[in-house]
């Protein structure tokens, strides 16, 4: 991933910053400039909102054939997570065995290494999810 692209996404990747439509109240993640439901009515009304980091597993899959950067972590779980605010996002579920992950499981955001541009390159950090304590 190009350095500027990741750098632009630091706020949302580190701190789950999304947007809330000032017109209908819908929360989006990642942040949007315009609400997909309200269109131009939302222009100038999109507010930054920090998600609580608490969510529920909607569905998940176990990755056995991983990209090179994730070889050390396989088998690992990728899940669609519905956040308390109603918005859904895709993320890795960590600190648990794949067989222990269940639909409906409560999870919370953690700060982890997402990848790196080789041994000499930039390291990318951001959210993953672990079972809620």
């Amino acid at each position, binding site marked *: 991933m190009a350095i500027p692209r990741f750098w632009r996404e*630091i*706020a949302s990747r*580190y*701190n789950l910053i999304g947007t809330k439509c000032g017109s209908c109240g819908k929360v989006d993640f990642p942040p949007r400039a315009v609400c997909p439901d309200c269109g131009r009515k939302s222009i100038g009304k999109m507010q930054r909102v920090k998600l609580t980091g608490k969510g529920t597993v909607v569905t998940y899959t176990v990755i056995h054939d991983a990209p*090179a950067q994730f*070889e*050390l*972590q396989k088998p690992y779980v990728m899940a669609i997570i519905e956040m308390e605010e109603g918005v859904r996002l895709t993320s890795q579920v*960590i*600190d648990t065995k794949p067989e222990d992950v269940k639909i409906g499981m409560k999870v919370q955001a*953690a*700060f*982890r*290494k*997402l990848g790196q541009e*080789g041994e000499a390159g930039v*390291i990318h*950090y951001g959210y*993953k999810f672990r079972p809620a*304590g």
Partner: protein
Amino acid sequence: MKAGIVSYGGYIPRYRIRPKDIGIVWGADGEAMGRGLNIRAKSVPGPDEDVITISVEASRACMAKVDVDPTEIGAIYVGSESHPYAVKPTATIVAEAIGSAPVMTAADFEFACKAGTAAMQTTMGLTLSKMMKYGLAVGSDTSQGAPGDALEYSASAGGAAFLIGTDRTIADINHTVSYTTDTPDFWRREGQRYPSHGGRFTGEPAYFKHVIACAQLLFKRAGTTAEDYDYAVFHQPNGKFPVRAAKQLGFKDPQIDAGLCVREIGNTYSGAIMVGLCAILDEAESGDRIFAVGYGSGAGSDGFDITVTDEIGRIRRDATPTIKAQIEDHVFIEYSTYAKYRGKILMREG
């Protein structure tokens, strides 16, 4: 006016390996090694954990306990000897991740295992002088021992963060003293993957000389003896050195038990005494007095005479798992998984 701890937070990765399982690989009696070191297991970072992720988790745990606006933090210093970047600060990433940036200063510290306590002293000065309201001092490591080396049985991962200020402190730092000399007991040269050490030289002329001298200076400065303290915590490279140092200084087992985390998680280096101090603050009550002396190879000791205040009852100590709960919540792994997680297996490029 005193500077003190406004909040605290610690983080220990979930994975553990037993000395026995390390010994099997190297044809050594790992169980005997573990008994000798007084270490039952050591923590291992997951494949996506490093000093930056551990520092962020510890700092977030620290901020979760209080209602402090993170933009009021004027400085973040992260002490470690395993910063992921040789050039590019860990502290800037911590600052962004807890919402403190950009109107603040930040830097990474290095002084073997005492860089975190050095950060505490620096932030004490900055807050006492009113240059800023709060400073965040972090000590964290994912330490490595060379495969088969004695260090491999103890070098572990973990970290802690302390929010330092002069207002609404949960624990006042009454006195701090340091004792520093040029002692080459343990080092890692630039570009080297694993540290080197002077074997038995790391004991008497290094750890014990500095810890005991610093502790005696602190007793003198505070006008106290071991009996005046409810808790004592020392740098804990293994479970043997701090116990011996404590006894020499007149402390009894019940005073050192709460902060002696090394027995269950190994030596978290820059995190070691700070995680121990977190474990004490998890259970301490108003009025309790804590004696803390860290140690960093190279070499030096930082000592702190601390008194817990009424404010400890007003923060949310249960906002994140206690150190005890994190120690208990663990998963044991074998050496093969440990080697994979710690990057000891040569992978193809890609």
